[in-house]
């Protein structure tokens, strides 16, 4: 998960763009990927994705993400190539024929997967969570409660992990050895810790709810946010690019 939802601070034009145009663009790319049957269009989109990484100043993160996706992709590729029976055989594994059609479908499928995941993941890395939630609430009238629930969930993950770590440290001090290589043994040591973690988490959430209400959570409306997102020229251009991709995908 690391790197997928993390925000990478910066001040590029992509960072400064309206969160809405970034999200919509990612969705448009998604649609283009599904519409097209042309491998060059898919390859073109992959290049575009990497360009987002370059312009957003997060190229290394983009590559890391790509590397992670390739692992899943490889698995899917093999599976798909094995399953597809129709077509002319390219080579044989024992008695099993791997067909050219099978290889092509597998490659397309894998490219689609990568092309669909990358833009959204990268755009989210370039967008502050609070800006996104502000834009969704004030512009798209998403109920603030939902936006808040999602951002809070993401924010609480590190808090809970650090809670778990301190519980584990306390156990380690009592002689429990967590650094065993055996997965099942490790799991059997960690699972019982879930109860104290759950109790402390429920307490935390209760405090959080009270603290938030005492700071006027229930008074908040869609117009409360002081940072108002606004479309500028780059936003329109980005959307135009997304629509252009769909048109291209339909035409060729």
């Amino acid at each position, binding site marked *: 998960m690391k790197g997928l939802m993390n*925000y990478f601070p910066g001040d590029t034009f992509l960072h400064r763009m309206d969160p809405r145009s970034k999200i919509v663009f990612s969705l448009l790319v998604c649609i283009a990927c599904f519409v097209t049957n042309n491998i060059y269009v898919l390859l073109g989109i992959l290049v575009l994705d990497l360009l987002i990484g370059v312009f957003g100043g997060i190229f290394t993160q983009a590559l890391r993400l790509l590397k992670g996706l390739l692992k899943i992709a490889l698995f899917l590729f093999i599976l798909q190539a094995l399953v597809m029976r129709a077509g002319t055989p390219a080579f044989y594994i024992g008695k099993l024929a791997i067909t050219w059609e099978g290889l092509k479908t597998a490659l397309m499928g894998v490219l689609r997967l990568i092309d669909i995941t990358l833009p959204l993941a990268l755009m989210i890395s370039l967008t*502050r*969570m*609070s800006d996104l939630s502000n834009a969704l609430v004030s512009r798209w009238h998403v109920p603030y409660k939902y936006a*808040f629930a999602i*951002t*809070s969930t993401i*924010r609480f993950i*590190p*808090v809970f992990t650090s809670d778990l770590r301190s519980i584990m440290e306390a156990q380690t001090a009592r002689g429990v050895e967590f650094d065993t290589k055996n997965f099942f043994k490790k799991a059997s040591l960690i699972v019982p810790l879930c109860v104290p973690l759950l109790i402390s988490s429920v*307490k*935390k*959430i209760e*405090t*959080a709810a*009270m*603290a*938030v*209400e*005492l*700071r*006027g*959570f*229930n*008074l*908040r409306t869609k117009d*409360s*946010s*002081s*940072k108002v997102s606004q479309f500028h020229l780059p936003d329109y251009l980005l959307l135009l690019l997304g629509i252009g991709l769909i048109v291209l995908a339909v035409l060729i």
Partner: protein
Amino acid sequence: MIQMKEFTFQYDTGKKPALKNIDLEIHDGDFVGIIGNSGAGKSTLTYAINGIVPHYYPGDFYGSVLVDGMDTVDTAPEQLAVKVGSVFQDVDAQMVATYVEDELLFGMENFGVPKDEIEARLTEALQKTGIPDLRFREIDSLSGGQKQKVAVAAIIALRPDIIVLDEPTGELDPESSDQIFQMLKFLNETYGTTIIVVEQKVGLLCGYAKRLVLLEQGEIILEGPVREVLKNADRMEEIGIHVPRVVSLYKELVQRDLFRGEAPIGLEEAETMVREVLS
């Protein structure tokens, strides 16, 4: 001003009253420290002031609690929150934002602070708490002491007349704890903000608070100016409260007839006492 009259409260899930027959007046501009053993009712007392009791934790409520004349039972907690700012014991839990700036904006936006006033209040709150350089930092990356200051800054931005804090130095080292109290003292002296703070470190508290309230099993057993309360050091030690070491030293000196002055509060007065005894 806060007035509690014959105030008794028992949580719905509790077996005995968490607070019993509380009569307490806290005036504007006061700096009150609340001490007592675990389970004595300190947190409940702060809940009674900010309206968490009885609005979030229901129970049997007797007597009355008035904040600036508003009865807390009849006033919505949000409305009360305009007067009373609350800092909870668990700092991590009370943070809502990823960035310091957004943490301060949250409350101001909710309470409808005019948009052209927000920036001024934001910088002012960061200035007052001494953390203007943290404005664009990620909250996750801050130390415990810094987070405490952010929590207080987020409250100050709402300009409450009263700030209630529940063990704000709970997980801090002595130096950061001292910084938090310096900041509270500054707010109290410069802006006349009423400060009500629950604190385990009695020694630290005595250096800053004007008055002390000692709770034991839901009742106020000692209450008054710090110096007056400390005269009962024996009684305090009996129920297990650690009195400041200078006070123990003072008692010892008085017993041996070496010193006749008032009990010292804080390091400077202690130094004066020791010098006087030695000369």
